[in-house]
């Protein structure tokens, strides 16, 4: 008999026992939906991290001290140890070929005040180059200048969120706000960037010259500094990275290469994606187990079904079904269950991913390969777990099957 004939027989007999067929499908449905949703969530996490790293700018290198190294806790004298200094930024900018921009970066928090309004947010102290590295523009007013950094001018640019919260409808330009009670003049409002994919508001920030921030807000004992560098080209980035590391080591006598982190965007992306890949695999494996359980459910039901239908099998054989026909009939029944279950599961997976994406503000992404993987997997499960019951059916002795009560 041809495959379509057997398919029709299989579908008919599944239709005769709708509830059971549905319940068997349920296992596969949930398994596939779980796999799809988990992969989508994992994929989403990866995308978030990627977006965040890309939003740093182009060809960015980030330099920081390794605070887990012991020296940093004992060392405090300037010019030695592994703590970054503002002079390092200048040295990098001036002495290394292929460096387009370099900026000192201090980050802290502060309470902002304007007239009666209060707002607490992150405060950054940077060079004027920072705006180029991060590709930031002013929407109103202007960004501050290198001269502001030189003269430790008390100026700042604010993000849209800060502007809204401190000024409401009023014009913030040229107004004096207080950051931890230190007066700063607002010279510009940054062009809005909106939320990043993690749901963080990128406009909730205040940026001022690092010299001012260091002198007025942080004080002499502040040691937590980062340097952000933008390399000329993607091709040169690794050379620049190595040159920076060499320079830092020569400037800080007696340090090893482990005491500074000099990481490119790609390094960060790779580190982050290996974490999110591990997470994705973990999530998908857990979901895969439920798919496996679904498959065992199919086998269980198919075994019951074969036992229940021994007489039917005998009758079919008596009127001309051969072993192959019976084998195929039961395998096709199992595969039909798993494929239909798989298809519904894909639908549910999309739905679940959508819901997670919507309520958790998480950019989930169902990828075509996760769909293909699930379909292939559920098909394989049907064949794998259908085989044993089917071969049991096909190898029944005709007379015994007919006489079976």
């Amino acid at each position, binding site marked *: *008999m041809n495959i379509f004939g057997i398919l029709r*027989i299989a579908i008919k007999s599944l239709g005769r026992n709708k509830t059971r067929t549905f319940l068997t499908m349920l296992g596969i449905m949930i398994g596939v939906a779980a796999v799809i949703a988990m992969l989508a969530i994992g994929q989403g996490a990866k995308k978030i991290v990627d977006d965040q790293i890309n939003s740093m700018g182009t060809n960015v290198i980030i330099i920081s001290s390794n605070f887990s190294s012991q020296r940093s806790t004992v060392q405090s004298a300037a010019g030695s140890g592994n703590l970054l200094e503002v002079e390092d930024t200048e040295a990098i900018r001036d002495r290394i070929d292929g460096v387009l921009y370099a900026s000192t970066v201090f980050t802290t928090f502060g309470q902002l005040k304007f007239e009666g309004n209060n707002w607490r947010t992150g405060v950054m102290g940077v060079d004027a180059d920072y705006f180029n590295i991060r590709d930031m523009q002013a929407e109103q007013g202007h960004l501050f200048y290198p001269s502001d950094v030189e003269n430790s001018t008390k100026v700042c640019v604010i993000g849209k969120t800060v502007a809204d919260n401190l000024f409401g409808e009023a014009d913030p330009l040229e107004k004096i706000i207080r950051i931890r009670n230190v007066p700063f003049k607002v010279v510009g409002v940054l062009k809005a960037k909106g939320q990043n994919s993690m749901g963080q508001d990128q406009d909730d920030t205040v940026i001022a010259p690092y010299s001012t921030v260091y002198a007025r807000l942080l004080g002499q004992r502040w040691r937590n500094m980062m340097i952000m560098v933008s390399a000329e080209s993607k091709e040169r980035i690794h050379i620049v990275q190595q040159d920076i590391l060499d320079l830092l080591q020569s400037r800080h006598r007696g340090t090893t290469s482990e005491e500074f982190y000099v990481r490119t965007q790609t390094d960060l992306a790779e580190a982050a994606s290996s974490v999110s890949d591990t997470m994705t695999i973990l999530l998908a494996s857990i979901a895969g187990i439920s798919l496996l359980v679904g498959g065992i459910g199919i086998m269980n039901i198919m075994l019951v079904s074969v036992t229940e239908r021994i007489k039917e099998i005998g009758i*079919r054989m008596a*009127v*001309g079904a051969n072993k192959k026909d019976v084998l195929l009939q039961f395998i096709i029944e199992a595969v039909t269950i798993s494929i239909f279950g798989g298809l519904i599961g894909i639908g549910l997976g999309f739905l679940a991913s959508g819901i997670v994406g919507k309520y958790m503000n998480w950019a989930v992404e169902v990828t075509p390969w996760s769909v293909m993987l699930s379909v292939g997997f559920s098909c394989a499960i049907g064949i794998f777990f259908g085989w044993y019951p089917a071969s049991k059916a096909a190898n029944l002795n*005709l007379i015994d099957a007919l006489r079976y009560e």
Partner: protein
Amino acid sequence: MPELLIKTQHLTKTYQMGEVKVHALRGVDLEIHKGEFIAIMGASGSGKTTFMNLLGCLDHPSGGTYWLDGTDVHAISDTELTRIRNQKIGYVFQSFYLLPRTTAMENVELPLLYRNKLNHHQRHELAISAMRKVSIEDRMHHFPNQLSGGQQQRVAIARAIVNEPVFLLADEPTGNLDTRTSLEVMAVFQQLHKEGKTIVLVTHEQDIASYAQRNITFRDGKIVADTTNPNPKDALSDLARLPKLDEEE
């Protein structure tokens, strides 16, 4: 004499039941010609069903040879045996063996499904014409549990003849039926016989056997009597003579 259809030579069948061997058939020699209508009789356990299963290619003999239409059945492959079951033999069972929750139509179509190269339409036509022959076509959309015993047996007979087999085997086809329906079923067999079918039927009722042309008696796995019945009774006229009951629904 018409063509020889079946020839068995010292056919034996032994069942192994744990330690004990059950000799169900102890050497059966028989010749059946095309167009014969044979009734096999014998006490319960005398080996009738075992013999029928061998004739129907449902089981393998333990010894001896069986020629069907010139082929040595013992020598051929399982696939070939399946094909013979499907196309040369129609088997009617005592307890009908219809697929449950499956319409009469689909039950009759069953052997056709396992025959290649038939489309839906052809299957439908063949099934309807088989059902028409046994006058059950008006019940084709009914499920077995919606049919009386006699009607179910008609569906089973329709299934047996749908592939136009060379011969029909029936193992106690009236065993589960009352007198009237038994006669109706016998009338169907007699009609099929008139149309040229070779029929072998098992019964333990002398009365039923008297509708066949030849009576064979089994005892302890052997044929002990083989007689011709020159004047078989006519089931249709006997049916007419039965006292009228309430009409069948």
